[in-house]
């Protein structure tokens, strides 16, 4: 399979991925990474160059929020917002391992992020877009007060600056340590997107692995266009909970992106290598670039095979577009 990502040198050196058991490199010095799906030993540099998609079986490895942003936006266009907002411990929550306050300090150090959501703006092939990207390695991208506040501010800025919003959604569920503050972020975020809709600005939602609980039960599944990465697990209740409660065996492929597509819950499954192209087209439809100003679009359906991306400011030309 060809490499999707031609913009070499754009990616920062990847950090170790040992925070996720499934992606943990098993070979010393991280020179090689084993694909958890097909078992192929992949040359790590080659994997990174391919947007962390297995070159043999197309398995989509999880990305950090910053890796994701690097893949999405034009080089050097990302401007991060609201980095000064930090979590607090309003409930004085105590769990067996200690206080939430201490947990936050430890997590911030370990994840090298201040919270579980990164927001900002950038351009995709020159089209401005507000980005709201979940960081799963920070407490499972659970939705706490900072998540909600940063998201709402990003959406409000998108309204002010007349931009579409892309949310990249992964979440393990609620931030239990923030109690009802966590639940109320569902209300707060959905209210913000209601406003965005009133301004006729689109919300594109990209569901990535894994996405559960309050995030898909609020703003992430009522976007104007619902996209998901291949193989991503998405649902309301987690699989272990469902098995425990129902004592039933889960069907094959349950809660995968493909399952959601079959059940009518999403518009498209998008290969990582196609996402910029898809967002470029979508952005033009909703934010109003006339089609005549563009050249080279193929007729017919959006291809569902990876498209060779060419780095042009105007628009990408999918080579051999039709699947």
């Amino acid at each position, binding site marked *: 399979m060809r490499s999707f990502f031609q913009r070499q040198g754009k990616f920062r050196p990847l950090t170790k991925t040992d925070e996720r058991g499934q992606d943990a490199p098993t070979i010393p010095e991280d020179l090689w990474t084993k694909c958890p799906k097909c078992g192929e030993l992949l040359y790590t540099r080659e994997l990174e160059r391919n947007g962390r998609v297995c070159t043999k079986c197309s398995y989509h490895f999880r990305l950090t929020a910053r890796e994701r942003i690097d893949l999405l936006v034009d080089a050097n266009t990302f401007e991060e917002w609201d980095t*000064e907002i930090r979590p607090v411990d309003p409930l004085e929550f105590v769990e067996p391992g200690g206080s939430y306050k201490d947990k936050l300090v430890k997590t911030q150090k370990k994840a090298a992020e201040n919270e579980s959501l990164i927001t900002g703006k950038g351009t995709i092939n020159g089209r401005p877009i507000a980005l709201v990207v979940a960081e799963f390695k920070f407490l499972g991208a659970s939705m706490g007060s900072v998540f909600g*506040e940063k998201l709402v501010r990003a959406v409000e800025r998108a309204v002010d600056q007349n931009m579409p919003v892309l949310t990249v959604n992964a979440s393990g*569920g609620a931030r239990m340590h923030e109690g009802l503050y966590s*639940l109320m972020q569902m*209300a707060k975020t959905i209210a913000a997107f209601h406003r965005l809709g009133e301004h006729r600005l689109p919300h594109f939602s990209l569901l990535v692995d894994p996405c559960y609980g309050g995030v*898909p039960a609020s703003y992430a599944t*009522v976007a104007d266009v619902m996209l998901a990465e291949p193989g991503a697990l998405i649902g309301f*209740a987690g699989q272990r909970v469902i098995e425990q409660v129902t004592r039933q065996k889960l069907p094959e492929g*349950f809660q995968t992106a493909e399952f959601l597509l079959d059940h009518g819950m999403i518009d498209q499954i998008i290969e990582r290598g196609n996402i910029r192209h898809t967002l470029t087209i979508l952005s033009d439809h909703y934010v109003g670039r006339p089609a005549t100003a563009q050249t080279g679009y193929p007729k017919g359906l959006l291809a569902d095979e990876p498209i060779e991306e060419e780095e042009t400011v105007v628009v990408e030309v999918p080579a051999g577009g039709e699947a």
Partner: protein
Amino acid sequence: MTDEIVVTAPESTLTAMDRVRLARDPNRPATLDYVNELLERVVELRGDRSFGDDQALIGGLGTFRGRSVVWLGHQGGTNTKENLERNFGMPRPEGFRKARRLMAHAEKFALPIITFVDTSGADPGISSEERGQATAIAECLLQMIGTRVPIICTVIGEGGSGGALSISLGDRMLMLENAVYAVASPEACAAILWKDAGKAAEAAATMRVTAADLQRFGMIDELILEPIPAHEAPRDTIQTVGERIEHHLNEVIAEWNKDDDASITAMLDKRYDKYRVMGAWTTV
């Protein structure tokens, strides 16, 4: 918010878990008890027009204090048979889609909405996932936040997570003294963080799930006292709740005119602001 003196719960020796147990007491009045006691000319409106009718989340028309309203509420059962029919008060996607339909219906006919919140949560089953449980809740929330009629919500029992939130976005949020409202059940929280569902009492305490806690955090507009716990004085409790709903509904309706867009926008802006400020964070 009202200008009146805020009622706060009296000092109590009850623990958070005691309140959880009270909230779940099977003899505590449930949605249908309120509907039967407070509303006249009640017509249940059933079905999501797509797949089925969910008896765990019910709704319809009724006359409340001389005014036609749309009512919605969670409803469990009082015996095994009824619990199975009502899925223990845990709505499936059809319930949320029906709620959404009835909210849009209320909007079409400019009828205020009153809701009764009482569920341990949304159904966590295989078929609910297949039919889009997360999406159904989300669509219900999106409808509710923008619904152009006054909405008064009351937590009467257990407010469990997204299933409870689905009919809780309104202009006023009331809560009975012995009701609880939580992002996850204490048992689920304990199972995850303590690795032991038996530690629910510890989890309930630190999660701050009581009406008094939520009043302190500014998440409810009124705490309705239960001088005698609701299951021991159901009729009195229902009447008190009815009075408080009427009071808040009258206040919101006073500033709302179904034929005046500006008044509707003002109401929706207030509703937006109500949730906009919910959160606890700091800046560096």
